[in-house]
């Protein structure tokens, strides 16, 4: 299975980068965006930090094993948390 590296872009103008040296094994390129969004959602929901003021301004810059850019996934792409199963009164 191919390995992808999820570098975290943050800070003003996304000028800062937390380099992912370890990566995650995924089934293929189609799994990259869902994985990035899942991790982003968890960071937004649960991770307290003084380093990132607003998670929604962050992005994952994803590279492959050869170091080539695969895609950039902005955290803002996460949809509102009402998708999937929440009870919505009519």
């Amino acid at each position, binding site marked *: 299975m191919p390995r992808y590296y*999820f570098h*975290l872009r*943050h800070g003003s103008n996304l000028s800062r980068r*937390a*380099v*992912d*040296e*370890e990566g*995650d094994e995924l089934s293929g390129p189609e799994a990259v965006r869902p994985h990035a969004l899942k*991790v982003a959602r*968890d*960071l937004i929901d*649960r*991770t*307290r*930090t*003084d*380093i*990132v003021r607003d998670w929604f301004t962050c992005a*994952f810059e994803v590279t492959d094993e050869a170091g080539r850019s695969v895609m950039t996934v902005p955290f803002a792409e996460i949809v509102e948390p009402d998708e999937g199963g929440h009870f919505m009164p009519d």
Partner: protein
Amino acid sequence: MSQPDQAAVSNRLLRAMSAEDYAGLAPHLVPIELPLGEKLIDINAPVSHLHFMEAGISSITTDGANGKVEVGMVGREGLVGASPVLLGTDRVPHDHFVQMAGEGLRIEAGALVAAMDASTTLRRLLLRYVQTEIVQVRQTAYINAIYSIEARLARWLLMCLDRVDGNELALKHEFLSMMLGVQRSGVTLALQALEGSGRIRGRRMRIVVLDREGLEEVSNGGYGAPEAEYARLIEGT
């Protein structure tokens, strides 16, 4: 087999025992290697042996639908298996495995319980040790509820540092992610911040602590109280 001399052991509990209590336990202590990943206690399996840690670190983890997270840490200050066995049960719903390779002195559960039943001073010391585990885990609950990832990471690194010789820790971010219950990106981010302020130096799979006091500052009071309580209860300082 030759038994280790009390002055030669590294385990702080064994060192804190009266010479008499130690002499009673010594014939039952078996030195063993503790390789990385070794299971010391399996979830809900009978605890046949306890381990006085001499070097290395054992993690207590909880496993659930949302993943595995560390909920306790035992190194040379402690005894793996103490809380179930000393409090009168033979199993515990948590995994205990070697997180950093080392060595230990193994003792059969029955032998330790018999020694404890025979000595009020030993009972007092070991139950005080269980209290220090409770204090540690309550602190963890507190930290996990309200502290930032960088403070939690700083505390965790300090706790590891207390349990190793030197200032270097061999750790993958993936592993830290599991230990702290945070996405790997969050760990990387926090490590980068600690590195940026000169408190650590990070290399692939390796963290060198450069400024211990600086880490204590970052932990923002998260580190220290349980460690002081251990010193007070076990070592009388």
